[in-house]
């Protein structure tokens, strides 16, 4: 973190160390014996106060990077929004101690993902109190893309990961790369797959290996007609990011994107229109159902009732969506690669992620970087991270780990999930972010819902969303 320039003090302005101003020319009461000691006391008190203030100010301004720690005991301040990360890092301390010259202790602060970024910026303005390590939920990292916030606050990892070459997936560097520099290390390769209830599809005679979305849509429409069961869900609730996320997963699979590598919006595209039309048609036929909260009670109820027998979602959804909400359905779920779109696109998509990084310019910056390298980038760490947290590796080679390939998942009926994930790793699309991403989420969510309702055609919804976005972006 760079020092913030402090405003210059005008010449002659009384500073905290200056003598008190001379007595007023207006005649006052004549000093009498006995007043001097009190004045002296007051002067000393004022001087002490001024020194204390100056000391505090100095601490505020220069409390960082007094001396860079290169070894020995160090207490890292870690900010994260997720208890899982907190526990994982706590368990990783002995390994990090062995892998580095440091002896680590962690002091963890946990808060909402958005609040963490706000707090980081506030502390940075104050010049003190920033963490040594911090996790940015991917959507909130977009806030760090504004101006030069990333370069000012975050450690540059570009040179550190260079030796890994293509093994560290470029798709997972993209969201945290600004002007060609990498500022955070992702916790996951959140590839999306199709989750389905094996028992229900068998019961209703729906093949689980339908090759295209169009085939799934036709089968889903028939299924809904007969049994009121859907094969997918989208969100139409008040969580705007969630509304966009369910659409964006299919958009990225189809080959579209929200932003390109230069952070320019790419929403107004044939792929986006086709994707939106596909969802709108699905909602009308009942192949898809809309829920108010994809991660909350409404989706949980739909899953428990068995009225949703399949859905597209990221790899982490099994751990954080299905298992907690429908534990009684353990053994009945399976995953497969997403069905393809007939008109083109890939085999998977992407949703989510959290980038961890060290805050730059601090005494503990290098200690934090060492800790993160040891617990986040090594093959052992990435395997352990999957086993403990359910997050897929970000290194290509780790997907071929015999240990991971042999893992059988109880919740998915003993399925070897990496037999599905491993072939997808090279198809994970890059997810580029923009400082104006929040604007797009806000405007797009509203128009998506209007299109879902049939109030607007997909073409019109996307055209208006793009137009509104352009009108609001880059203020």
């Amino acid at each position, binding site marked *: 973190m760079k020092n913030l320039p402090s405003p210059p003090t005008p010449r002659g302005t009384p500073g905290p160390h200056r003598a008190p101003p001379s007595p007023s020319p207006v005649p006052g009461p004549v000093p009498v*014996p006995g007043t001097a000691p009190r004045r002296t006391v007051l002067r000393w008190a004022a001087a002490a106060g001024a020194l204390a203030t100056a000391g505090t100010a100095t601490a505020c301004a220069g409390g960082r990077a007094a001396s860079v720690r290169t070894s020995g005991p160090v207490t890292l301040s870690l900010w994260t929004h997720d208890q899982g990360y907190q526990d994982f890092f706590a368990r990783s301390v002995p390994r990090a101690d062995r892998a580095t010259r440091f002896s680590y202790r962690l002091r963890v602060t946990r808060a909402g993902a958005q609040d963490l970024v706000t707090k980081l910026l506030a502390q940075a303005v104050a010049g003190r109190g920033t963490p040594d390590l911090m996790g940015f939920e991917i959507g909130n990292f977009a806030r760090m893309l504004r101006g030069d916030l990333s370069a000012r606050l975050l450690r540059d990892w570009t040179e550190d990961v260079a030796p890994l070459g293509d093994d560290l997936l470029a798709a997972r560097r993209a969201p945290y790369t600004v002007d060609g520099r990498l500022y955070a290390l992702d916790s996951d390769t959140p590839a999306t797959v199709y989750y389905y209830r094996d028992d229900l599809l068998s019961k209703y005679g729906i093949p689980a290996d339908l090759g295209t979305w169009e085939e799934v849509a036709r089968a889903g429409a028939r299924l809904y007609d007969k049994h009121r069961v859907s094969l997918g869900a989208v969100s139409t609730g008040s969580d705007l990011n969630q509304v966009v996320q369910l659409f964006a997963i299919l958009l990225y699979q189809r080959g579209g994107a929200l932003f390109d590598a230069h952070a320019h919006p790419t929403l107004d595209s044939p792929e986006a229109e086709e994707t939106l039309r596909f969802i709108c048609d699905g909602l009308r036929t009942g192949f898809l159902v809309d829920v108010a909260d994809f991660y909350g009670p409404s989706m949980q109820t739909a899953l428990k009732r068995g009225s949703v027998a399949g859905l597209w979602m990221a790899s982490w959804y099994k751990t954080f969506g299905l298992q907690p909400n429908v534990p009684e359905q353990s053994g009945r779920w399976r995953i497969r690669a997403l069905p393809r779109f007939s008109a083109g696109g890939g085999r998977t998509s992407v949703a989510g992620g959290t980038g961890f990084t060290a805050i730059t310019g601090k005494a503990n910056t290098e200690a934090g970087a060492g800790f993160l390298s040891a617990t986040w980038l090594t093959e052992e760490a990435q395997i352990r991270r999957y086993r403990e947290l359910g997050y897929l590796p970000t290194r290509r080679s780790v997907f071929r780990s015999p240990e991971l390939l042999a893992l059988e998942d109880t919740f998915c009926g003993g399925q070897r999930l990496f037999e599905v994930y491993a072939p997808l790793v090279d198809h994970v699309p890059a997810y580029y972010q923009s400082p104006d991403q929040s604007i797009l989420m806000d405007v797009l*969510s509203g128009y998506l819902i209007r299109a879902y309702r049939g109030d607007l055609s997909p073409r019109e919804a996307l055209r208006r969303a793009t137009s509104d976005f352009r009108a*609001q972006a880059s203020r």
Partner: protein
Amino acid sequence: MTSIPADRLRDPRSLPPRATTIGGRAAGPRRGPARAPYVFIAPFYVLYVLFMVVPILVAVYLSLCEWVGLGPPHWVGPRNYAHLLTDVSFHRALGNTGVYVLVSVLVIVPVALMMAQGLNARGLRARDLFRVAFFIPMVVSPIVVALIFSLVFDRQFGLANSVLRAVFGLGGFDWLGDPTLAKVCIGLIMLWRWAGYLTIFFLAGLQNVPRSLYEAAELDGAGRFVTFTAVTLPALKPVTGFVAVTSFISAAQIFDEPFLLTHGGPGDATLSVAMFIYRAAFERQQFGYAAAAGVVLFVLVFTISQIFNRLLGIGRAS
């Protein structure tokens, strides 16, 4: 207590000498009395300047800059204000806030008056119980309120649709997903939260209306409606003015309800100006733009509340 003759009071020279020393030193008779009042009120004004005037001036300065939240702000002049003029999202926020203000002043204030009138009725039992019951929504955490009402208004499993379906055979209303219904929901929550609180003010006002006025109206043969319009309403004018202005100011700055219940959505359908400011500053790192919107909100609220003050004669003797 020793009394001093009146003729001696008129002549200061005849008064006994004032104590000129405190603890053995001069008490400063010339300076003390002149400065003492200022010294006593100084703490308030020092804090007022530090925490009100300075932040407002900084906000005005910031509104003329571009600032991402760190580093030096870049001066851009009135560009932020020019952008606000063309920002459809800000226009929607202004429109929505206007709706909330109208709901507050034209619906909630009259409902609160009616409730107070009911509570003030002679012979009403459990008056205090009603008063507490009406006041409770005001002290419930907005987070809890949002949680409860998000369950009430859930399209698929909410109480509102279930009741409508059971009683009228209707249902399936997307309360929070439909732009118009979402605004209605926000208005209902405002009514639920604020009406009881405002009732307390009206009730206090009603209890101060002299009974003789009602007796005179009764003697003149006035019915209930005429008594209400000819006696109660004029007597409550100062209270009504105060309640209307404070309700207006609160509604113009509404944040909790739309933020917690709908996040301003769907789209910008329930976005308020205060939420617009929050979103610009803390989701988009556009602090200068947010400050400009804040200044516009301040000017609007200040101007309109001043007009209200003049029209309703708040603070002036009747």
